[in-house]
């Protein structure tokens, strides 16, 4: 189910909120305890989340359940009072290996098979028959969350879950299930036991949700049309190529940060507090800064569970560069089973290592802030070409068009009809205004005022009107 869909907004969400807030009323009349109430709410959310997830394909609920059971069991083994270091290590290893194996099979199985065939074809050997594997939606997100539990419990950073239902609720919780933010167990363990609910918290959740919905429906979806036209074109003029990739950069930001805003907002509506996932990333002054602002939950996850265990920056400059490259390479691969994502990750890894090598006293750091923002944005734009294209060949052709080696044909001139209409120019301008807005949505929604309430009401009305007139538009990050 998609947040920006009729069925979610007008059927699923009111039913879930109604049920969730009706539970205390029912159970208090039955004189049940607060603990019972909190457990029953988690169970209710779990069932609702399975409906939400199963809406895409009911069969894959079983896979999520399996990941939940494996990691929950791992946590029980690790936290068993009589467990020694070996048993604890075995528990965490088993949980991580099973989770990664499932992720590897479903996400990288097809990639592996097609690459084997490619290599075989180099030697003139016929390929193997491809075993078709469907990628379960959001598997990268929920396996990472599940592993974070086992690792956090092993490290002693978090207590074990009090029940399988609570843990499964954490894994499946519908607000952040399919596209994050990646919520780490230690950040939410206490909230699974008891959460605060208040008018203020709910209203701030509504604010975030409406802002996210507006970003998705009013900006990301129309921007997607521009980006699709650019990236789908047979030939491109230089200006078209830059316009197309800029539209994609805006689209992916509004799409993904819109989803994250909605996730945070929905979480607040049911008492959870999720971390901020974006912090004005296109205002970053360096690639290092960009990664502090973009998909923060992933970059901190990779830092804490991969970069630091690899040695971080504690083993000298060369090892630091290598660690950065490894982390970003794997980060790229996490996004998708395609060489384009590997190159995208490697490119960012190289830039991070290069910035580390230059140090803070370099010429680059002495440039005016605006110049650094622009340079960083252009570097990021180049990386989005790899992210958006489905093959490396396509990416190279697109990059060639960006430096003037792709246009000059008559159809390329016609592309202006789909790129530079009034609607497209207005949307791009609006996107720039929103990006330049000084207060990000996370902070904007913290204190509600009457003018803000009016803005939110108008935004919701417009977003619903646009949603009802648009075709189905899933979120970009659903594929990861």
């Amino acid at each position, binding site marked *: 189910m998609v947040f920006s869909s009729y069925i979610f907004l007008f059927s699923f969400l009111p039913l879930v909120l109604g049920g969730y807030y009706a539970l205390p009323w029912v159970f208090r009349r039955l004189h049940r305890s607060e603990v019972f109430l909190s457990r029953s709410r988690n169970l209710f959310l779990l069932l609702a989340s399975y409906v939400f997830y199963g809406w895409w394909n009911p069969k894959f609920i079983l896979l999520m359940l399996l990941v939940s059971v494996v990691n929950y069991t791992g946590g029980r083994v690790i936290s068993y009072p009589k467990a020694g270091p070996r048993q604890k290590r075995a528990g965490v290893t088993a949980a991580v290996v099973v989770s990664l194996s499932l992720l590897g099979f479903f996400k990288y199985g097809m990639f592996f098979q097609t690459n084997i065939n490619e290599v075989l074809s180099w030697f003139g050997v016929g390929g193997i028959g491809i075993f078709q594997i469907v990628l379960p939606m959001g598997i990268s997100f929920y396996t990472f969350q599940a592993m974070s539990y086992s690792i956090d419990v092993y490290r002693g950073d978090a207590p074990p879950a009090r029940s399988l239902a609570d843990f499964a609720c954490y894994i499946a919780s519908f607000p952040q299930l399919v596209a994050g933010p990646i919520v780490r167990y230690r950040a939410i363990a206490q909230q699974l036991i008891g959460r605060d609910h208040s008018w203020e918290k709910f209203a*701030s959740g509504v604010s975030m949700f409406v802002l996210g919905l507006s970003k998705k429906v009013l900006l990301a979806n129309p921007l997607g049309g521009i980006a699709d036209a650019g990236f789908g074109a047979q030939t491109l003029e230089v200006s078209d190529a830059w316009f197309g990739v800029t539209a994609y950069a805006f689209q992916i930001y509004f799409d993904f940060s819109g989803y994250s805003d909605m996730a945070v907002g929905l979480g607040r509506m049911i008492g959870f507090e999720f971390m901020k996932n974006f912090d004005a990333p296109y205002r970053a002054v360096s690639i290092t800064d960009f990664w502090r602002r973009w998909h923060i939950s992933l970059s901190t996850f990779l830092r804490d569970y991969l970069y630091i265990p690899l040695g971080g920056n504690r083993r000298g400059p060369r090892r630091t560069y290598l660690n950065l490259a490894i982390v970003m390479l794997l980060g790229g691969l996490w996004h998708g089973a395609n060489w384009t994502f590997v190159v995208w990750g490697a490119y960012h890894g190289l830039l991070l290592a290069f910035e580390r090598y230059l140090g803070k006293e370099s010429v680059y750091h002495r440039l005016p802030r605006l110049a650094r923002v622009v340079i960083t944005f252009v570097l990021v734009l180049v990386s989005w070409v790899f992210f958006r294209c489905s093959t490396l060949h396509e990416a190279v052709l697109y990059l060639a068009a960006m430096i003037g080696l792709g246009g000059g044909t008559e159809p390329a001139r016609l592309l*202006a009809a789909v790129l530079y209409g009034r609607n497209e120019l207005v949307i791009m301008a609006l996107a720039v205004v929103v990006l330049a807005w000084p207060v990000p949505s996370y902070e904007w929604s913290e204190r509600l005022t009457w003018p803000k309430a009016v803005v939110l009401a108008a935004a919701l009305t417009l977003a*619903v009107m646009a949603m009802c007139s648009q075709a189905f538009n899933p979120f970009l990050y659903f594929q990861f």
Partner: protein
Amino acid sequence: MNNARTESMVLTVGFILAIACAGIWQAIVEIGGGRPLQALDLFRRVPTAANLRAYERDLEDASWLTKQLRPGMQYRQFVWLKEAGEKVLIGRDGWLFYKPGVNVLLSRPRPISGNPGADDPVAAIVAFREALAERGIELLVVVAPNKESVYPDKLTWRAAGMSGVVGPKTVGLLRRLDAAGVKTVDLFAVFDRVRQTGGPPLYLIQDSHWSPEGVAVAAKAIAGQIIDYGWIERGDIAFEIRPAVVERVGDVLRMLQVPRLEQEAVPETIRCGQVIRSDTGATYKDDPDSQVLILGDSFLRIYETDEPGSAGLIAHLAGQLKQPLTSLVSDGGASTLVRQELYRRPALWKNKKIVVWEFVERDIELGAEGWQIIPLLPIGKNSE
């Protein structure tokens, strides 16, 4: 959280009411209209992925809220932003274009599905030509140019001065057909030449199809080529042209699916030429025993079975060849559906020496049911 309580309460209650009322009102509308509750359909189907998708789509289509909001939003987007939805592109000087067709012209070729008998036009055309050759029938392929291929300058300011453009996919198709020995009529060059000489537009402004002038030019070019090849000689039936004026709201305008825009639009006044038999004064009629069978899509239908009738390409080609034709038309289905229909109607083969197969340029990629290889009935069954 540091929100003011009153504002928070108002926003929360307003939001809840907004999301809950849509469903409640929908139920009231359905019960009031004596219809079963659509939402309960969920429990009448097995919850498979496909059924859930269909349920969601049905719910959205039946939604009172969507029906209220969609036309207004689309109207405002059209008027304020010149945004015309998935199917329409607004060009210059009021010209409207069929967006998927423009996309075919601009986009990279789609990857082949891996089934060569399903989506390769050349394979399907060559197979058809060979099957016809076994019966001693000639094939002439006519690719009707997309409107934007003939009037790129009406699509965007950046194409100002361009009088015609042939997309790489079309060039590739025509080259491959030529290499395979398939005879084609190059309407792109013909239309380009006519455009250079001025005169009325060859395409309609609000419609994706050609104008009566375009029809006449195409008919003349096709007939000329048939006669040049010596496949048949001109007949001896004299036809004449009678002017007929129709008013038409273009198909592209209707694709906007905004009733208010259709109501506000001024229909195009179209001066057609109806083809009349000189001897009887009757409007043109097909002859099932003709030597020529013409297959095609809505480019054959317009003015022929549409108003005013007998003024489309079929009638005009018949007028040029001085003999009636046999025709088979499948709207949007010239790639495969029309040949499937032909397979089911073997009587149409009687006396045939030529098949003229017209399809619109965009069907190279967008043809309904792709480009399947459809066998012909065995020769022995011809005369049924």
